[in-house]
């Protein structure tokens, strides 16, 4: 037996080919070679002859080859079976690949399901693409969404020629009585055509319709599934029940299905009850007044065939016409206009940037998973070079081998997809619970056939993607050469493979640079946000809301006039301040609660000392607070004075403004002392300036805010502020009790600590940050394993070279350097490519950034350094292994 054969046999034994047929045929070839050589052929000739006998002239048909393995017919099923057998024989590789794929596909399916439900899926109404929200803006006062008056609504409905239907949507707090205690629920006042416009029906009973139009509120009301189960125990005989809402009697005529949600903003949670009105009789002004914008908004259905742009142009023309007809109500410089927005965009537009970025990030993760598994497959296929070479020699066509390799990849990917779907379905509820609760359309998020289809598609695409490289390798085999090389070190095939793997690893590093940069920018934004001072002291501050019912019949309204409301405010303040454990107490309006963003709406006003000029007209958020409000919240007084108990009825009307107000509206003139008139015709004088409060969240600039005295301008939606050491639930009980002592018909709700409210205001940002960091961590891990894999592979290939070098006197550190150098080059290349890509990609994130630029130097320094360290660290182990090769062992093997 020649040394050549011994080596051949050694290679054979060490190879991981378990393909029995290949082994049997190899045995045959070797015996032939042996006999040929015994009869005098040179080793090369002997081998060539042995192969030739199997070669082109004498091809064994693949069908024959596989007779033993399976009742082989040339079908996909047989391919799949063969692939499954191969995969089952390598449980380690297979489970790692399937787990990684399940992670990648699962994360993508989860995020896509979210994006699909929130952004892509049409709203669940009839012809949803024709649904639009209608907003009125006062461009001259830089005020958006100021609401509309009833005559303006009637113009849109009757004369604009744009809408098939248009309905008022008027969310309001109401008090539902009749239970153990009065409960605050959210009512949506609509015109009677609301449900017809949306094209939805009740799950139980019926909805109201245009035929029931009445000038005031109609008797029939529709309740939500939530209220039905919560308040009426899901009673199927609830239809016809009489209920009292804000002390008015209504009859329940319908219960909406559980999936139905009003496609618009609400004040405080979901809509509980829908009530219809004509809005032209009490409690609304009768007759309606053109410049009293009492309606918060409207939703419309465009006439069929009309595009949004065409409709908008017609409305612009109509608005211009109205300004000519009513010059007093629509001063030209206020630039009153009506704006249309697709209902879906209006509902979900503000979460779009976050979701789009997350979707992009998660698809990067999947791409990395693909790259990683492609790397694994290449490593594996190098061990299978001999098997493929034999099969080529036995007559398998290139296409055949490619199909074989692709089948294996697809099988892996499908297994990963299936695992992902199973995990997602199992964890669905937990995952949805992790989402920010204020995410619009969250209730529509669920796994269904679309999820399945997506998982399947992703599996097929990824399988094809990561199977491509090894498939190309398999097809590029040259049976004559590669049989000889047979997976030996340094062959052309393995060179080709290590080159492919190097490219893949660079790609991986580049992708992880992009993901890490994205995550880094979000982290920087978050910490920049946390460094913002809220403008008040949230520690130990508890807030809650009180709703003063507004009955439709003015005569039944005990608080219709402002005097009794002011008296109520004084009474409540005294009672709350006397509660045990309460250090300071104050009252305000619901829009004076910081971080409670969806209760704000700008209210126009004009300075009286500026004449009727464009400079005089502005809009700001108007509050109404007790004198102790600023002290209780810890808002500093910057100039002038705050209110006293004497700023009540009969005293001159006064106002305190914040610094943002001064900056925006009175930068040149001393604000203190300036008189203004609000859109309701009330006049007041500015007496003080206080510090800004970041009302709309730490990451939003403070908006102009006008505080009036609650005794002069008492609201129906009251806010309570209590500085205390007690916890929120204790405060809630104490507050509810003491307020009900004053008036048992006042619902108390929304009692929360200020810390809680602040943290809720960051929940979306935290959610994006958490996911992005998670993706970046996965990316880093994948990159590290990728680098490790390719370096270990290269070291394995160059073992012999290293031992020769060692034998010739190279030191261990020389060998380490020899290994680290290419990994450094790979890493550096990947980082460079990744940084270039990042500068482009992070620009798409600009809407998510706060206090940091998309090209943040710190992030763009830390990320490459981090990846450099990871790259070196990941190649250290293979380098050590290379340095520890036994100088004599490899020589002996040669």
């Amino acid at each position, binding site marked *: 037996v020649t040394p050549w054969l011994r080596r051949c046999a050694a290679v054979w034994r060490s190879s991981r080919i378990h393909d*029995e047929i290949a082994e*049997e045929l190899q*045995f*045959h070839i070797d015996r032939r070679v*042996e*006999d040929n050589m*015994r009869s005098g052929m040179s080793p090369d000739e002997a081998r060539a002859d042995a192969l030739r006998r199997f070669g082109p002239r004498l091809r064994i048909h693949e*069908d024959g080859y596989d007779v033993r393995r399976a009742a082989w017919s040339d079908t996909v099923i047989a391919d799949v079976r063969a692939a499954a057998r191969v995969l089952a024989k390598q449980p380690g590789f297979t489970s790692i690949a399937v787990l990684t794929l399940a992670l990648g596909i699962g994360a993508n399916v989860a995020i896509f399901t979210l994006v699909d439900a929130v952004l892509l899926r049409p709203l669940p109404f009839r012809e949803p693409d024709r649904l639009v929200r209608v907003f009125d803006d006062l461009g001259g006062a830089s005020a958006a969404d100021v609401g509309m008056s009833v005559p303006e609504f009637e113009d849109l409905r009757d004369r604009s020629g744009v809408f098939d239907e248009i309905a008022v949507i008027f969310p309001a707090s109401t008090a539902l009585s009749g239970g153990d205690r009065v409960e605050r629920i959210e009512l949506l006042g609509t015109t009677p055509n609301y449900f017809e416009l949306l094209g939805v029906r009740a799950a139980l009973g019926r909805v109201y319709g245009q035929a029931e139009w009445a000038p005031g509120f109609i008797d029939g009301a529709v309740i939500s599934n939530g209220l039905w189960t919560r308040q009426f125990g899901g009673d199927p005989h609830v239809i016809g029940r009489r209920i009292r809402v804000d002390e008015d009697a209504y009859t329940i005529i319908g219960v909406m299905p559980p999936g139905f949600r009003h496609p618009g903003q609400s004040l405080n949670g979901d809509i509980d009850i829908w009530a219809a009105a004509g809005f032209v009789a009490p409690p609304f002004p009768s007759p309606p007044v053109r410049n009293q914008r009492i309606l918060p908004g409207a939703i419309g259905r465009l006439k069929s065939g009309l595009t949004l742009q065409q409709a908008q142009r017609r409305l612009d023309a109509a608005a211009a016409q109205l300004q000519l007809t009513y010059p007093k109500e629509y001063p030209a410089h206020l630039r009153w206009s009506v704006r249309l927005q697709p209902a879906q965009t209006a509902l979900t537009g503000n979460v779009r940037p976050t979701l789009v970025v997350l979707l992009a990030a998660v698809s990067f993760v999947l791409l990395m998973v693909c790259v990683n598994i492609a790397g694994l497959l290449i490593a594996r296929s190098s061990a299978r070079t001999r098997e493929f070479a034999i099969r080529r020699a036995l007559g398998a066509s290139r296409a055949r081998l490619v199909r074989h390799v692709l089948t294996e990849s697809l099988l892996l990917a499908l297994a990963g997809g299936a695992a992902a779907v199973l995990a997602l379905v199992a964890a669905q509820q937990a995952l949805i619970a992790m989402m920010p609760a204020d995410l619009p359309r969250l209730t529509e998020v669920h796994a269904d056939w679309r999820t399945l289809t997506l998982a399947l598609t992703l599996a097929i695409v990824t399988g094809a993607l990561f199977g491509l490289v090894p498939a190309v390798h398999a097809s590029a085999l040259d049976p004559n050469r590669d049989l000889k090389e047979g997976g030996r070190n340094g062959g052309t095939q393995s060179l080709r493979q290590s080159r492919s793997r190097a490219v893949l690893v660079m790609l991986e590093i580049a992708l992880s640079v992009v993901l890490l940069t994205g995550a880094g920018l979000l982290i920087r934004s978050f910490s920049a946000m946390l460094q913002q001072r809220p403008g008040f002291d949230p520690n130990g501050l508890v807030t809650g809301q009180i709703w003063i019912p507004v009955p439709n019949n003015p005569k039944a309204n005990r608080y219709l006039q402002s005097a009794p409301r002011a008296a109520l405010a004084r009474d409540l303040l005294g009672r709350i301040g006397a509660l045990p454990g309460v250090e300071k107490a104050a009252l305000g309006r619901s829009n004076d609660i910081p971080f409670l963003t969806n209760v704000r709406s700008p209210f126009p006003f004009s300075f009286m000392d500026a004449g009727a000029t464009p400079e005089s007209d502005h809009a700001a958020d108007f509050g109404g607070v007790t004198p102790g409000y600023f002290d209780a919240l810890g808002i500093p007084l910057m100039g002038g004075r705050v209110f006293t108990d004497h700023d009540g009825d009969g005293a001159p009307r006064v106002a305190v403004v914040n610094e943002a107000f001064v900056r925006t509206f009175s930068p040149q003139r001393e604000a203190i002392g300036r008189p203004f008139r609000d859109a309701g015709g009330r006049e007041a004088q500015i007496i003080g300036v206080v510090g800004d409060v970041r009302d709309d969240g730490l990451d939003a600039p403070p908006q102009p805010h006008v505080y009036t005295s609650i005794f002069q301008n008492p609201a129906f939606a009251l806010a309570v502020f209590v500085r205390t050491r007690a916890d929120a639930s204790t405060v809630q009980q104490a507050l509810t009790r003491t307020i009900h002592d004053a008036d048992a018909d006042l619902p108390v709700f929304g009692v929360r600590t200020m810390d809680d409210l602040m943290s809720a205001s960051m929940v979306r940002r935290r959610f994006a940050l958490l996911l992005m960091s998670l993706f970046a961590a996965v990316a880093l891990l994948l990159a590290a394993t990728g680098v490790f894999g390719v370096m270990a592979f290269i070291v394995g290939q160059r073992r012999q070279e290293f031992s020769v070098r060692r034998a010739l006197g190279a030191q261990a550190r020389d060998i380490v350097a020899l290994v680290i150098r290419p990994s450094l080059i790979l890493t550096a290349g990947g980082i460079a490519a990744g940084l270039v890509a990042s500068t482009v990609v992070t620009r798409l994130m600009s809407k998510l950034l706060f206090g940091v630029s998309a090209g943040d130097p710190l992030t763009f320094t830390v990320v490459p350094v981090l990846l450099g360290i990871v790259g070196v660290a990941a190649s250290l182990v293979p380098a050590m292994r290379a340095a520890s090769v036994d100088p004599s062992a490899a020589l002996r093997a040669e």
Partner: protein
Amino acid sequence: MGRNTPGTPDTRGTPDLPQGTLDMLVLKALSMGPMHGYGIGQRIQQLAEDLLRVEEGTLYPALYRIERRGWIDSEWGLSDNNRRARFYTLTRAGRKQLAVETADWAQLTFAIGKVMQAS
């Protein structure tokens, strides 16, 4: 190429095996004892005194086919030079089949001989 040496005679000029006879030859070769694929080919060639050559391209498909019919069995064993090799043995069914085919073949060659020798 084309070198004619004692160990590996050039048999490209030998007649092709009639359809279906290879199976019979394999069974015959195995009736003399278990053997691996290479040995079967060699054994047939030797018995035919190099007048026949079994092509690798048909031998292995034939082996697998016959094994599926249950006429032969296979298991891994060690060859004479201590290499792992798949050895085939004749099963009881195979032995019966060989007897049937031998008888058929004798009858067939006898009949064909008669026809061809007719003057």
